[in-house]
């Protein structure tokens, strides 16, 4: 069955909706745990969590790790959106736009790698 333009739009819309919704809920959980944990000045003790430590701390429902994870999910949503766009254009057999979307992905990844190295 050929993949229609409407289905493609629906898929992209779903990624955006659930990506941003899940990120928001995870961030809210993290902040909620921080507030529940104690007095205001203790907020200053919450720091960024280094990536290797993130997963173990997530398992323990660590407040800072949850918040951090929510932010990472938020940052990844647009990248997922490009990936899904590439897939849906491919399913629609629209080669021109597969190339356009691949081009966008390439430039975005390039600009990220540029600055991380520099």
């Amino acid at each position, binding site marked *: 069955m050929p993949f229609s333009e409407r289905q*493609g*739009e*629906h898929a*992209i*819309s*779903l990624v*955006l*909706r659930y*990506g*941003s*919704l899940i*990120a*928001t809920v995870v*961030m*809210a959980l*993290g*902040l909620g745990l*921080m*507030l529940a944990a104690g*007095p*205001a000045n203790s*907020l200053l003790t*919450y*720091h*960024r969590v280094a990536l290797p430590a993130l997963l173990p701390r997530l398992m323990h429902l660590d407040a*800072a790790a949850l*918040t*951090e994870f*929510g*932010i990472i999910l*938020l*940052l990844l*949503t*647009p*990248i997922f*959106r*490009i990936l899904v*766009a590439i897939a849906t254009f491919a399913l629609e057999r629209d080669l021109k*736009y597969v190339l*356009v*979307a691949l*081009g*966008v992905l390439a*430039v*975005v990844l*390039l*600009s*990220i790698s*540029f*600055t*991380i190295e520099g």
Partner: protein
Amino acid sequence: MPNSATQFFAGLGVLGVFAGTMGALLGIGGGLIIIPILTLVYGVPIHQAIGTSLCCIIATSSGAAANYVEHRLSNIRLGMTLELATTVGAVAGALVAAALHREALAILFAVMLCYAGGTMVRRSLKASATEPEATASYTIRRWPLGMIGSGVAGVVSGLLGIGGGPIKVPIMYLVMGVPFKVATATSNFMIGVTAAASAFIYYSRGDVQLLLTAPTAIGVYVGASLGTHIMRRTPSRWLIRLFSAIMFYFAIMMVWKALRGGFAG
């Protein structure tokens, strides 16, 4: 920082709701609202304010575009094509940054914004009854000019550190003949990707702070959902006037920043 953590989070949340609503309505990221308030009211260092703002632009874009794509307001193919021009422009801008005089560029840009804003106000006053609504069918005109304009928008936003929304919307609306609501919805769809490229950079430098970003982004998400509902019920001519007002504000900020030598860094 205010004493109470709840108060602190709530303040950022309210800021986020406002920025998210405006962003979803007009197809702009909301950085113009978030950055000045974080730096001036909360005393946040500028790089952390930009890091927060970039994350919030992604939240606005994802939250609003989910709705606009589903309702076929965002034109995905138009958006992706212009995205390509903008991102290439942004990289090119970064490469030629040293050769350009940023203050002069900012003032030139402010003049262009005022001209585009003026054109839009005039058109909204003259043709208020005939302004096509989003659902009307439209033909995209002047693709090459639109692509060049988006490339320039990428260069400018890369150099001056501003979001592309205030440039992309007028290009689509005035140059390419796209209905205003489709232009703002498509801009909303695009800005998340543009912001993500920079956001990772700020994130890796440690300029995305948990306690600033999370509460603001949550507010933005709520605001963006609110904004999409308001947008679909508001006549285009009112959105155009609101957008023009934002463009004039933007122009004033640019000139002010240029005169203070704010682009030196």
